[in-house]
């Protein structure tokens, strides 16, 4: 009988992890983001991406969208722990693969190169609603909206056309149809 040399128990079986999008409505007050993020880091949950902004200036409500991975038990804990925070109004949670939900991320891509390269870059972005925000005779800044992995792919593609800088947002989410998050 080998004795574990610890005052603590050994970890049990690990369940399968899934990626979830968690939407949190909070009072827009000082420190609220730190409370939410601190809960994640303090309890060992991870954050893949984060998007936050005020959505109701009258009621002073901000909407935080967090992409995270965890076992069903961990996701459940995240929701319940978030729900306990005093400035949190409601919490919604979706699997990333949920067909009823739209997810979008935005990215700004700066390409530096000759005309051919710049054109090529815009063409690569065609599927993702490219908007040219700025252009000079050496460079172009393109805005695209897409899914995370689509942006990953296009970044890879654009390397050869002179991609020099990328700025990305976290994912935001919304339900399809007339329904709203509860």
């Amino acid at each position, binding site marked *: 009988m080998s*004795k*574990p*040399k*610890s*005052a*603590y*128990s*050994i970890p*049990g*079986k690990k369940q399968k992890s899934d990626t979830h999008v968690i939407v949190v409505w909070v009072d827009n007050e*000082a*420190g609220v983001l*730190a*409370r939410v993020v*601190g*809960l994640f880091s*303090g309890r060992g949950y991870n954050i893949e991406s984060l998007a936050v902004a005020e959505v109701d200036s009258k009621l002073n409500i901000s909407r935080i969208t967090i992409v995270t991975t965890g076992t069903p*038990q961990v996701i*459940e*804990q995240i929701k*319940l*722990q978030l*729900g*306990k*925070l*005093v400035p949190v109004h409601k919490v919604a949670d979706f699997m990333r693969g949920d067909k009823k939900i739209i997810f979008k991320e935005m990215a700004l891509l700066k390409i530096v190169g000759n005309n051919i390269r710049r054109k090529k870059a815009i063409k690569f972005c065609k599927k993702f609603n490219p908007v040219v925000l700025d252009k000079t005779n050496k460079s172009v800044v393109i805005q695209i909206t897409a899914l995370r992995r689509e942006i990953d792919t296009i970044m890879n593609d654009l390397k050869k056309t002179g991609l020099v800088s990328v700025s990305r947002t976290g994912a935001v989410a919304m339900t399809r149809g007339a329904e709203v998050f509860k």
Partner: protein
Amino acid sequence: MSKLYSGAEIVFKCLEDQDVEYIFGYPGGAVLPIYDELKNHESIKHILVRHEQGAGHAAEGYARSSGKPGVVLVTSGPGATNAVTALTDAYMDSIPLVCISGQVPTHLIGTDAFQECDTTGITRPCTKHNWLVKDVKDLSKIIYKAFEVATTGRPGPVLVDIPKDIQFQKTKYVSSIKRKKLNGKIHNKFNQSEIDQLVKLMVNSSRPILYTGGGVINSGPKASELLRELVSLTGFPITSTLQGLGSYPGDDNQFLGMLGMHGTYEANNAMHDCDLMINIGARFDDRITGKIDEFSPKSKKVHIDIDPSSINKNVKVDLPIVGDVSEVMLSVIKTLKKKNPNFASSNKEKTSKWWEKISEWRSVNSLNFINSDKTIKPQHAIQRLYELTKDKDTYITTEVGQHQMWAAQHYKFNKPNRWMTSGGLGTMGYGLPAAVGVQIAHPDKLVVDIAGEASVLMTIQEMSTAVQYNLPIKIFILNNEYMGMVRQWQELLHEKNYSESYTAALPDFVKLAEAYGCVGIRAKTPDELDEKIKEMINVNKPVIFDCLVDKEENCFPMIPSGKPHNQMLLGPNDQKENKITGKGKTLV
């Protein structure tokens, strides 16, 4: 125009509105305006501690023994950081505390000013909520909300950080008491169908067990009464966590003793073999469950808790009921009486085999120890202390370590709020200041801190507080010169390499007591123990009792780490047998 009040005055007006009688605190530059205001409020007494951690633990002791929130007042910077341990302790054990801290003036925040620290940042993960007051107009609302958050739902600590300039600024005061109740995070959402399901499970169970925790204490004295009614109504066996002790009489036949790492053989085996586990206000802590994968494999599990995040956190349960345990138990009792009026008698037969099994486990007598007539065995000391104090309404606090577990095993509690120990955080140095707080709340009662010599030295300075306020607390030190629990783990897991667990230079506790202006008593042999304990009880002054005990004694029974409930180590006898067979094998 209505009268204008300064921030400092508003603090006290709010405390008066909340019927606060005592504040535990320590002054400093950033709270001077509040301290200046103290003299104008006779109904509020300030207890001057010797270290802010002591203020926090004293407030915890006060809160746990009285059921009222404890109030702490500290200065900025080191005052606040010193209170962090106590806040975390209160957070882990769900104790309502309201900590008011001073902060440097608003215009200096962020400049690394003298005694500045990011108090709300530091205390964010160890409070239910905290506030930095930026406008004096918000002050009364915030303090009102602070008390509400601390005391409702699952109780816990909160902190209000008040910059010095806010304490001087003036504004109107609106009493918040009359205001409409703010929407707190209260969860009482259970419904009758859940109660019906529970009753159905209870009726069908032949091996049931009730597993109760600190939630029963936190729910108020009513909860303990309801628990007693539920237990007698069902005839079910009951076990309790460390924090739940006292909610059910410790000397009752249906009580199996404490469960968990140092729980009794019968309680742990019953948890392992039961077919229905009803968790009332406990949280499946790792000291309770042992190895999670093999935790009570054959049972349906019901979890009654006010905190929804406690459900399914460590152990997946079959029937969660979110609500105040008093209200849930009341519904269960009502439903049970209505649907199965003869439950107790019909159930007796059904559970008779189960009770037989429990008697078998009981006969192992797992709390037994080999007594000695030469040295005082620590378990014997606690048993004598219990026998000599049980007729008084005694309040017990503890530090953390072996003595704490022996106290939990051998001191039998009959009433709630009589047992104050740091369970979740396991804070050495908790017991002495907690005893100060308990004695403040109950000036005429006997308050004993069962201590270890290592723990008590962490907050020994609070003896000075006890002397200042004539608090006749008794510090009963089981002195084995070791950090006993550390030494025990080193013996079991690290081949007796007692790395740094021996204290080579201890103070003379009797002289130390005298230096503080209290009474010092020392007991060296079992013969003189009773006399000395009686002497301690009869002194109406703070006492440090230096009880010299066996240095090598280990705390048994014990579930070794990574083992399930049914693989307990029973004690020296059990080990000896194992050792002999081990040696025997190598010889062959």
